[in-house]
């Protein structure tokens, strides 16, 4: 085991947390609930999305337990349907969409661009309150008896045939949508208008670029989801007949509208995660990200192409053959920028000086799993192949590789990476490396068998399945258990580190970003004086000179 590390902590005997920081500038519950500070709002988000992540995770546990046996024996099929619906709704709308932007992004984007706060601090707080209201609606739908539409709310099932709390859950998602629109709006304005002097577009860290791209998707895509949900609610409540064929409506219209948001939503979820990976890979290989411009523009390309591929969810739904051709072609094109990113990250390692702290391990996990997730996406974008694979466990495995293997790994990489900045303390390194390893193994054991069982034809959303699929399902359930441990570990040691973790100091990773040049945890106003930026992102020479200069002047 290598002991090489770049970690530079202040001497622990004499070190202490800064006397003043955003954490202790004010006290009391009210000072948190009425705060305008982007860092405090980020912490509020962090706590709330962690809460929902574990509820969604518990649902996943129930799903895997039910699928341990071919019969539907743990719960009634209706209950199973409600459980997977809640799993999807909570994980997508209350965890994945806000995960990186609303927590890490909220905390870091103003600091990274050299600003005191986001452009609209009150809207930022409003966005958190909307998120909480959305969460309450969702939990209400769950507690009152659940909802069993699946997270896709397919009409006419959701509008005419189900007798559950569709409207409550739909309103929850509708409100969560506005929360993410506000976050996106705030980011766009902040990045355009509040960059510090000298912080040009091409000096922005790639994390800012990818969040910018995701924000555009949030602002342009989410309103379509809101419209769709309103139509579903109106159709269900008063029967307006937009989607009902017996009233001249078209059920396929719902699919178009829903996927017009929900495909870009995939990029809303993954792009900020890609930003985290760029920061982490650069820091732990001490190198500029290879082809900065290409990586930055590939984020924008993904955002643009992402809007024109939605019908690839509908290849078997009787769309015209020619429109299927166009959408398949565009799907192939959207895969290219992702491939560029993967190779650029790998090339960043070339001639680096690499160390393997926990965030880097998660980043490696991301690269591997996201590559599999991306390549299997090409399977599904290929028209003829999609016919056999769609609506089976292959697609379940595919999007879990992207969303859990990719996004969640990136999220954990980010949380570990910026934990010292957020809290001023280090997490325990050995235990966290173990957690990263457990997560990786558990993840593969859970989701890899699902590719095979999917190719064998096992449909998704089945509470019972033919017995020949059992072996692969048992493997998957066993993996989910391991994965669960992998997620509980950080929860425990992160909480422990709040009190007992080592004092981190301003820049434990020797990273170049503006956020690492200020104290940890930062002051409420972030910077004591407006920073003037005179170097590119990831300029390690600048950092070395600066450190040397500081030693000279202080010494």
């Amino acid at each position, binding site marked *: 085991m290598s002991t090489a590390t770049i970690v530079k902590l202040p001497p622990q005997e004499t070190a202490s947390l800064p006397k003043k920081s955003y954490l202790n500038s004010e006290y009391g519950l009210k000072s948190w609930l009425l705060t305008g500070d982007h860092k405090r709002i980020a912490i509020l988000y962090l706590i709330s999305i962690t809460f929902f992540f574990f509820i969604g995770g518990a649902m996943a546990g129930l799903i895997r337990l039910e699928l341990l046996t071919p019969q539907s024996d743990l719960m009634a099929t209706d209950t199973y349907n409600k459980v997977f619906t809640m799993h999807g709704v909570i994980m997508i709308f209350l965890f994945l969409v806000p995960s990186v932007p609303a927590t890490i992004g909220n905390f870091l984007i103003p600091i990274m661009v050299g600003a005191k706060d986001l452009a609209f601090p009150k809207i930022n707080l409003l966005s958190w309150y909307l998120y909480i209201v959305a969460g309450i609606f969702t939990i209400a739908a769950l507690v009152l008896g659940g909802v069993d539409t699946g997270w896709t709310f397919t009409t006419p099932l959701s509008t005419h045939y189900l007798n559950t709390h569709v409207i409550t859950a739909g309103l929850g998602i509708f409100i969560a949508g506005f929360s993410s629109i506000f976050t996106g709006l705030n980011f766009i304005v902040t990045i355009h208008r509040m960059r510090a002097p000298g912080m040009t577009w091409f000096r922005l860290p790639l994390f800012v670029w990818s969040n910018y791209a995701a924000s555009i998707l949030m602002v342009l895509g989410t309103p379509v989801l809101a419209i769709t949900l309103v139509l579903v609610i109106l159709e269900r409540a008063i029967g307006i007949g937009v989607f009902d064929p017996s009233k001249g409506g078209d059920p396929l219209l719902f699919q178009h509208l829903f996927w017009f948001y929900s495909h870009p939503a995939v990029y809303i979820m993954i792009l900020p995660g890609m930003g985290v990976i760029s920061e982490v890979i650069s820091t732990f290989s001490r190198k500029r990200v290879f082809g900065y411009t290409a990586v930055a523009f590939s984020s924008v390309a993904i955002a643009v192409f992402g809007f024109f591929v939605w019908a690839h969810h509908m290849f078997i739904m009787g769309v015209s053959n020619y429109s299927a051709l166009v959408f398949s072609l565009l799907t192939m094109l959207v895969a290219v920028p992702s491939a560029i990113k993967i190779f650029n990250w790998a090339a960043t390692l070339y001639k680096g000086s690499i160390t393997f702290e926990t965030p880097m391990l998660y980043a490696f996990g991301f690269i591997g799993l996201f590559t599999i997730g991306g390549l299997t996406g090409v399977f599904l974008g290929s028209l003829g192949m999609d016919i056999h694979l*769609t609506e089976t466990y292959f697609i379940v495995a595919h999007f879990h590789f992207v969303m859990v293997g990719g996004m969640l790994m990136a999220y954990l990489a980010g949380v570990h990476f910026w934990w010292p900045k957020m809290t001023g303390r280090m997490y325990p390194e050995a235990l966290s490396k173990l957690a990263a390893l457990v997560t990786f193994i558990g993840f593969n054991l859970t989701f890899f068998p699902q590719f095979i069982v999917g190719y064998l034809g096992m449909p998704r959303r089945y509470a019972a399945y033919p017995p020949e699929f059992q*072996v692969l399902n048992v493997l998957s359930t066993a993996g989910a258990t391991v994965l669960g441990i992998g997620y509980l570990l950080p929860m425990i040691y992160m909480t422990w580190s709040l009190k007992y973790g080592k004092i981190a100091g301003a820049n434990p990773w020797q990273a170049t970003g503006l956020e690492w040049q200020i104290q940890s945890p930062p002051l409420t106003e972030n910077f004591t004086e407006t920073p003037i930026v005179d170097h590119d992102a990831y300029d390690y020479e600048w950092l070395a000179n600066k450190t040397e200069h500081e030693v000279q002047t202080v010494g």
Partner: protein
Amino acid sequence: MHFISPVLWQFLVNWLTHFALFPPEASGIAPYTDALYFFLVLISLVGMTIVVLLVVLFSVLYRKERNPEATQIEGSTLLEATWTIIPLALFMVTFVWGALLYFRIYNPPTNAMNIYIVGKQWMWKAEHPGGQHEINALHIPVNRPVQLTMISQDVFHSFSIPAFRVKREVIPGRYSTVWFEATQPGTYHLFCTQYCGTLHSGMIGEIVAMKPEAYEAWTAGSTSGASLAQNGERLFASLGCNSCHSGAGDARGPSLAQSYGGKLQMANGSYVNVDEAFLRDAILNPTMHQMAGYAPIMPTYQGQISEEGLIALVEYIKNLNSNYRVQQTLNTSQVQAPAAAAPVNGQGTVKP
């Protein structure tokens, strides 16, 4: 051998006897789908290997102990062009290959025999042209192209036969089609793959592919006595369709004989193809499909005829070659008006 836990033992036996990477290749399409799958798996493996090799190799070569000082590199347009163009080329090959396969799977040959499928919560109904009905099962002959014309009575369903590598959404309010040619006799899974409510996972069935002789025997043994078209004929008469669509020169409705497969001129001057979807829609929403030269007097039949009934009518009209029997039936029913409940055409009793 039960010195290990019986549960574990059973699991191992299961593993050894049931482990498979591929479903059976039981249709003419399956080998084509699997070929593309192998190609995709192969390029994925190669791509994955390259990425993993690069990451592992660089991690070993340029770890801090070996390389304490990083060398800063801006990027390389040539390299980046390489890893843009090569994946793009591979994805384009995948696109073209996938598109060819898609057209193969969704464009039926003209000589395919047609079977109707109605999906409803939570069962599959099959209506054979010979009048055989099945629920959650479909008997088909091998080595003969079979086309399914499918519709849902309620929500979205999806008709999936993994062993044939075909699947198609079954949609409320519109016909969708899929075709296949079974090559191996046997019994295969039929799944509904679009989530459709409580018993979604119970909406399964069997596809029984049979040798031609066995299929003939099954067809003969399962007949209900009247073909689908004959059922349609009865419905046609009992709904009174024949009183307008009689084929007589002064009839209030257009003649339907030999209309299927042709083109009709609409009141607004446009031409439409007469296919299953048109016929179904013209029955349900006649005002939307007003034919040139006829008054808009046909009432809607929305909500009055089940999807099975519509299928029978469509099948009847498809096979209607002359109006001789339409007029005969009309005359008979006028003459025998009091005895309307009497059997029509001597083909068994009228279904209620």
